[in-house]
Every structure is written in structure tokens, then in C-alpha cells.
């Protein structure tokens, strides 16, 4: 229950084509994450799947059934909105009950599911409050609770954690992942936070301007980005991308090396440079090294307790087995 298939789906708002023809299959039970820069069409794609926007052309099928013209409520999908979209004048209990009430579920069954969802989401103490009296994280859980009780074929999340603070975000991230493991329901999750994408996804879909740049597991994308855009987008901090003579040495237009694949030394190495800003995270340190002959500083990861400081002369050596090479079109050279 919950395979979603898009076939040459397009979407235009007036003359502006936001989604050019796009094909994508999301398997049953998969946790799929859409990532991409702001305005690339992630929300639009999700709303097309939900049925909240009509597609301009193409076909959407859910579980093999054509759902292109099926109204949102009949698609068996539940959506969690970025603004939570709770009903402010209803108590938490009524909010969660609303979809069941609309579906005509008997009251005893409604109560059973509400209690179960509230227990799973730690909401039992808040059932009689209004959304306005809850914290951001609690509201988020109510929104998820409202989605769970419908027992949908798939969950759609549109940046559900972006209004939460960092600590809460990590917590909710785990809760959603756990929920997925427990329910084994298809989930589509939109985010522009690539840590969320890397940690939660079975499959990541990287979008740019409505075009799918690459689809794959987090590690596939990390190990073998298909093009320069994906290389720069996946991984934190960003991959260092170099063009010009340095790339030509490796028979490529652009080469990329991740901060964690560069060794730093005070005595010898391929490239020499001076340390600029350093970011100490405790477990790791990221140095921004201004290298002789390169325009942009390189980011390098070192251990947590490295005794290097601003202005020190250092040598950098990239791990050549982990070097990514791209041609003039930005495509990966195998």
C-alpha cells in the first residue's frame, strides 16, 4: 500500500513552467526525501502528489491506479504542513479526530486511535488543550497525530521541522524516523536541510529548478554524485570544487574533493596555503585554508584537538582515490 509513480508530470503556473516533464517512482514503504535549494519546486511537487494542485500534464498513479484526477481526500495520503495547519478553535483531541469524523469512523474506534496516537507521540496530557496553548514541537506532534490516525497509504511532509529550534529538530527527526520504522508506511519528506536528508532517507531526490538531478540512497549520492550540482549540494560542509589547471592535471574540467578527504600537515603535501577561519566543533575542526594559486579557500576537516591556528602555514594532500572528476558539462567522469 503506497507506491507512488509520476510519469512525465509537468506543472506550469501561467506561462512559468515550474516542473518540466518529470518521472519518478517511490516504492512502497520507502522514506523518500526531496532536497533542493529554495524555490526549486519541492513543495509544488509534493502538492501535486497530494492533489492540492492540478498537474498540467502527465500521470500520477498510486498503487498502480491512475490518481491524476482523484481529489486529495480520496488519494489516501496524509500531509503534514510546514505551518502545521492545525484547526485553532478545536482542542487537540478534536484536531486529531477531524479526519476520522469526516470519514465517518465510529466514535469508539476514533477514541481508540486517538489514545494510541497520543500515547505514541507523548500527547496524552495535552489532548484537551487548544493548539495555541502548545509549544512548536507539540504542535508538530499533533499535526503528525492527525496524519497517523487516518492510517494513510503514504505520509507527505513539507519541511515539518523548519520552525523548530535545533535541539528539538534533532529529537523530532529521530521520532519521525522511528515512526517510519514502526509503521513501515511510505513517507515523502521535503526539506532543504541536507542533514535531515542524509540521516532519514532511504532514497534522496535532488531537485534543481524542477529537474531531478539525481535519485539514490544517501551514500550513493555521497560517493558518486552524478554532476557538479549534486556534488556541491550533498555533504556538509560542501565539497571543494576546483577548476582550471589543477583540474586539467586530472584530465577533468572540474575536480571535487570533500573536506574529510584532505589530509592536513605542517611539513609536506600537494598544495600549500595559510589557515584562515577555523571552526571548532569539538569532535571536528574545519579549517578554511587559502591555498596558493586557487581563488577560493578550501575547507578541510581535521580532528577535534589539532593545534593549528589562524595564519599558520600548512600543506594539504587530497585523497586521490576519493577524487570526483567532472567534464565541461558538469557531468561525472567515471
Amino acid at each position, binding site marked *: 500500500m503506497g507506491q507512488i509513480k509520476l510519469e512525465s508530470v509537468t506543472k506550469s503556473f501561467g506561462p512559468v513552467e515550474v516542473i518540466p516533464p518529470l518521472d519518478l517512482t517511490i516504492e512502497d514503504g520507502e522514506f523518500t526525501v526531496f532536497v533542493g535549494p529554495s524555490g526549486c519546486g519541492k513543495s509544488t511537487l509534493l502538492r501535486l502528489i497530494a*492533489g492540492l494542485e492540478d498537474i498540467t500534464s502527465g500521470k500520477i498513479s498510486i498503487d498502480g491506479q491512475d490518481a491524476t484526477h482523484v*481529489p486529495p481526500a480520496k488519494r489516501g495520503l496524509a500531509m503534514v*504542513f*510546514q505551518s502545521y*495547519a492545525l*484547526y485553532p478553535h478545536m482542542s487537540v483531541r478534536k484536531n486529531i479526530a*477531524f479526519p476520522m469524523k*469526516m*470519514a465517518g469512523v465510529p466514535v469508539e474506534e476514533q477514541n481508540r486511535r486517538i489514545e494510541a496516537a497520543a500515547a505514541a507521540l507523548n500527547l496524552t496530557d495535552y489532548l484537551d488543550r487548544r493548539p495555541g496553548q502548545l509549544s512548536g514541537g507539540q504542535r508538530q506532534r499533533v499535526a503528525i497525530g492527525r496524519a497517523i490516525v*487516518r492510517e494513510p497509504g503514504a505520509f507527505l511532509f513539507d519541511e515539518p521541522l523548519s520552525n523548530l529550534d535545533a535541539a528539538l529538530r534533532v529529537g523530532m527527526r529521530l521520532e519521525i524516523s522511528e515512526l517510519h520504522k514502526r509503521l513501515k508506511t511510505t513517507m515523502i519528506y521535503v526539506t532543504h536541510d541536507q542533514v535531515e536528508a542524509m540521516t532519514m532517507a532511504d532514497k534522496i531526490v535532488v531537485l534543481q529548478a524542477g529537474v531531478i538531478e539525481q535519485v539514490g540512497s544517501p551514500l550513493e549520492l555521497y560517493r558518486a554524485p552524478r554532476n557538479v550540482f549534486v556534488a556541491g549540494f550533498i555533504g556538509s560542509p560542501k565539497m571543494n570544487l576546483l577548476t582550471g589547471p589543477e583540474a586539467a592535471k586530472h584530465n577533468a574540467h572540474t575536480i571535487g574533493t570533500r573536506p574529510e578527504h584532505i589530509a592536513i600537515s605542517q611539513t609536506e603535501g600537494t598544495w600549500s596555503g595559510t589557515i584562515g577561519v577555523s571552526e571548532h566543533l569539538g569532535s571536528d575542526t574545519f579549517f578554511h585554508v587559502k591555498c596558493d594559486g586557487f581563488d577560493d579557500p578550501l575547507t578541510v576537516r581535521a580532528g577535534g584537538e589539532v593545534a593549528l591556528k589562524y595564519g599558520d602555514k600548512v600543506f594539504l594532500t587530497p585523497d586521490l582515490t576519493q577524487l570526483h572528476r567532472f567534464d565541461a558539462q558538469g557531468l561525472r567522469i567515471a
Partner: protein
Amino acid sequence: MATQHSRSAARIMMAPAVILLLGWMLVPLLMTLWFSFKKYLPLRGGDLGWVGFDNYVRFISSSSFWPSIQATLIIVGGVLAITIIFGVLLAILLNQPMWGQGIVRILVIAPFFVMPTVSALVWKNMFMDPVNGLFAHLWKFFGAEPISWLSEASLQSIILIVSWQWLPFATLILLTAIQSLDSEQLEAAEMDGASPLSRFGYITLPHLSRAITVVLLIQTIFLLSIFAEIFVTTQGAFGTKTLTYLIYQRVLESQNVGLGSAGGVYAIILANIVAIFLMRIVGKNLDA
């Protein structure tokens, strides 16, 4: 207004307005009370001294008193019902994206800018005239006998005229309220399987409740004292004599200021009874 400090600051800043309003209200109120205990006939001897509660007894025992209260309440209730029901519908309609929205919105608001006297005269002569009115022509076109609106359906006609004037106000307030409704809530309800009608009932209407309350309270205040519409149409005949109109007749037609003032005090009492009822019913919508 969270802290002690901001509360007392707010009080000080509001004081001038409150004092001014209080004076504005108290002076006429005290004068009305003063005259209501006097026999005061400006053209027939002037101030004829104190008479105690005589005026009050005479005003209430007049055969026009209870019918006037009834007419007042029917007009207020009728206009409120029409303006709120149609106001909500119009607001929803005007909130839909459509061609020429800006012009339509201005047209809908226009009646509010027409003076009550003028609009009542236009209705009386252009629409409701039993010989030349548009309605009469319409009725004749369908082969029916024209109705002489203002005598046969006088209360309904006045309700119609006043509703026409107040509908823009209600629509405007409700439209701004509808525009502040988060569209994601409606979308969430749509995904939750709510039909358009349930979306209206469960999401839109509760969202509008506060605006509806505001419309209800403000309109009631103004509708209790409508006068011009009656003055230029029926002159209080055919059962359209409201309390306001009765007071006017007592003071100006009968030249009895004392009796009219007593009626004024009854009007204050009526307004307060209505206000208490309204606050009981809808006042909780204004909390939070």
C-alpha cells in the same frame, strides 16, 4: 498588556479619550433625565415644573409603546440576519479570484457611501413606487398585481432598505476576516476529507465568529436608532413606528419634551437589555 507597568501606562494614555467620551455621554444623559421629570411644553407654556414619574407612566401606557418596541426589534433582528447571512456569502464570493475583482469590490461597498435619506428616497421612488417603481414594472411584466410595498409590506420594505445600506459594512469586515484565514488550514481540511460544506462549517465559520460578533455589536448600536429611512418613507405609519420614531413624534410633533425625554430613557434601557443579551450570546467570541 503583560506587565503591571504597561497596564498602568495604558490606563494613563487612555484617560483623555475616556474622560472626553464620558463627558460627551454624561451631559446629554443628565439633561434627558432632568427633562424627563418635568412637564415641559415649549410652545404651550414652557417649563411647567416637576411632575415626578408622570411622563414615564404616560409614555409606557400609550398604545403606541409596545408596538414600537416590537417594530424596533423586528427591524434590528431582520437587518442583522440579512446582513450577516448575505455578508458571509458575499465575502466568500469576493474572496474568490475572479476577473474585475477590484471593481466588483468597490461596487459592493458603494451603498455604504450613500446617505440614508437619499438611499431611502431612491428605494421609495425608483423601486417601490406602486405605479412607476421598477418592482411594479417587474410584477406587471410577469402579469402580477404590483404591490404597494411601503403600505402592504412596510416592515419588510424598511428592513430591505436598511439591509441594503448595511450589507457593505458587514461584507467588508467579513471579507478582511476571510482573507486572514490560513489557506493551509483549508487545504489540510481538504486532505482530511472535508467536503466544501464541512470546510465552511468547521473551518471558515469558526474563523469568522469573531468578525461576525463585531458586526453584530456595531450594527445593533446603529440599527436601534435608525430614523431617516422611516422618516422619508412611511413616516411611522403602517406599523413602522420604532421607539426612536415615537420619541421624535412626542418631542417634535406633540411638542412635549418631557414625555420624549422619558421615552429616551426607555430607549437607553432597551439598548442595554439588547446589549446584555448580545454579550451573553456572542461576547465570549471576543475573548482570547
